[in-house]
């Protein structure tokens, strides 16, 4: 579609230790373009000092998460036409509950570290996606567990940004890492020490926004609840001496 919309873009800016403020830009852009396209155009043609995160532009890297009109979005797959109308405003802010580097950039490496701690497998056999309703998409090939795929979680941080528990306590392990631990499968002693704590699964207060904003089928809230059940049944069995901690297969 060659039609272009006239938009008012408000971008949160922050350099160094100064207080954040908003800069305004006028932009002509197609409604079929993405919000990330808009940000990139502002950077390329209007203000090259704008810092923003991006890499793959097709929802596999997780680098371009931002708040768009107050709602967490993965901007490379968010169409302009879905967030505003011709003549409208788009307000861009960085994700919450993560360290702000500058402007629209947050540091996702604390999330990466937590995912490593809970041993979330970044690539895993295709059939192994237990625990939550797994919508089968197209026909699957013969059930061959030797196929692998990169995990759903792209470590984008949208879930952390929207979580009210993460807002009040930075020590909270967070929806992404807890979901990651659930996907890891066996909850061994090491992972238990992280998730079966007051800052682990028990800190969640069922807001469910993490599952809503996840662009990648992870459903963190559901996984947290499933893991609570798992942890409880493990505790009960340990109490009756029926099992010790799970040993992780090496």
């Amino acid at each position, binding site marked *: 579609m060659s039609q272009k919309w006239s938009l008012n873009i408000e971008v949160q800016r922050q350099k160094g230790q100064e207080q954040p403020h908003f800069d305004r830009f006028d932009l002509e852009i197609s409604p079929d373009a993405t919000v990330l396209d808009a940000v990139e155009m502002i950077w390329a043609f209007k203000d090259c000092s704008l810092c923003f995160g*991006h*890499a793959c532009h097709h929802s596999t890297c997780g*680098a371009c998460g931002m708040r768009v009109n107050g709602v967490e979005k993965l901007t490379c797959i968010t169409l302009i036409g879905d967030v505003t109308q011709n003549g409208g405003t788009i307000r861009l802010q960085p994700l919450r509950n993560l360290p702000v580097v500058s402007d629209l950039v947050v540091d996702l490496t604390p999330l990466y570290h937590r995912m490593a701690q809970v041993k979330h497998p970044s690539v895993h056999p295709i059939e192994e996606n237990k625990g939550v309703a797994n919508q089968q998409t197209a026909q699957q090939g013969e059930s061959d567990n030797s196929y692998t795929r990169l995990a759903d979680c792209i470590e984008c941080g949208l879930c952390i940004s929207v979580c009210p528990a993460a807002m009040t306590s930075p020590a909270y392990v967070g929806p992404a890492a807890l979901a990651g631990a659930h996907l890891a499968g066996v909850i061994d002693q090491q992972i238990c020490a992280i998730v079966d704590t007051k800052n682990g699964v028990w800190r969640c207060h069922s807001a469910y926004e993490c599952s809503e904003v996840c662009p990648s*089928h992870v459903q963190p809230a559901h996984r947290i609840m499933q893991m609570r059940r798992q942890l409880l049944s493990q505790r009960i069995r340990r109490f009756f001496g029926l099992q010790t901690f799970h040993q992780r297969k090496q």
Partner: protein
Amino acid sequence: MDKPKAVIIGAGFTGCATAHDLALRGFDVTVVERGPIANGASGRTHGLLHSGGRYAVDDQEAAIECIEENLLLRRLAAECLEQNGGLFVALNESDLEYAHRWTQSCERCNIPVEQVDIKQALVWEPNLTPKILAAYTIPDATFDPLRLALTFAATAQANGARFRLFTEVEGLIERNGKIQGVRCQDRTTGKSSELYADCVINASGAWAGKIAQMAGDTTIVVKPTPGVMVAYDQRLCNRVINRLNEPGDGDIIVPQRRMVVIGTTSFEVDEVDYIPVFEDQVQMMRDCAIQLIPAVAAARQRGAFMAARPLIGSSTSGRSIARTFKCFDHQETHGIGGLVTITGGKATTLRAMAEKTADTVCAKLGITASCQTREYPLRSYREFRGNDAYH
């Protein structure tokens, strides 16, 4: 003795892999990048870990390099890969004729290719068009672009390399006909600073020409050559699907996570910083994809994106280390010391490019240090420390 200092401009695949190699060779490495990791052509790559099959007929040297690096990366960077192999499929007579040349060429390049029964191919990949006339397996794989770059960056960082992201090079510091370092501005604060180096490595991809011009060398002409790729919201295949014929537009479908990505096209532009997505190209890609996987017609489009390959203009002088990329020592091309430019290449061969660049830099500085990146185990991409990179 002080470590030799290297400043690398650009943190795409080339920059990250070169930082890793030089750090292992005892260099004090600083990577300066005006955006985040892999935000240029590297991030937007198709994500295909080439087996070399695509180059076997026309460029054997490139094909051999591909398969070697493919096998290395499967071992070193398994965390970023979907290692499900690939299929080359023939859809018409022209494809079948090509097949004969192709299988022989692959054999010569040591690329393991095996013909499979059409019925078996369709059992493996039920969404593949039933109209295929022949199918061959090949060791293609899918990689995650950002995470592959981060893997090299994290390893380099662990060995002392410093990444300065959101830091733009504003100029090169030149004294007595030699580049001594770079002047750069930290975009997160607005503060400028100077970084000194024994050698500056220009690994800025599509912007290599602009950086070279800062040194007064206008002979490096990089033609940004973008291509469009379209991602669909269903994992319609598990293996990479290639069209068995001369490399052309829209002849590869790469699965990744719960998507498939069809690519790509090739056209020239002037403006590098922002390249819009052209709707007619997206349509063309969709049509090409439907030829291979008819179910794409009913699939929802998840995104369309442009990646600008940095191709070297043919008028550019300079010795090329290999046909797959070009490495320029500006001392030789223009009498300007302290600067090396590396550009071109593909993601699959990032480690090999870095090896040859590092060899050039070492030779230039009279340093004997051999490459260790073939064996050195890469760290997890999750070990990358933003703390140190986002000063």
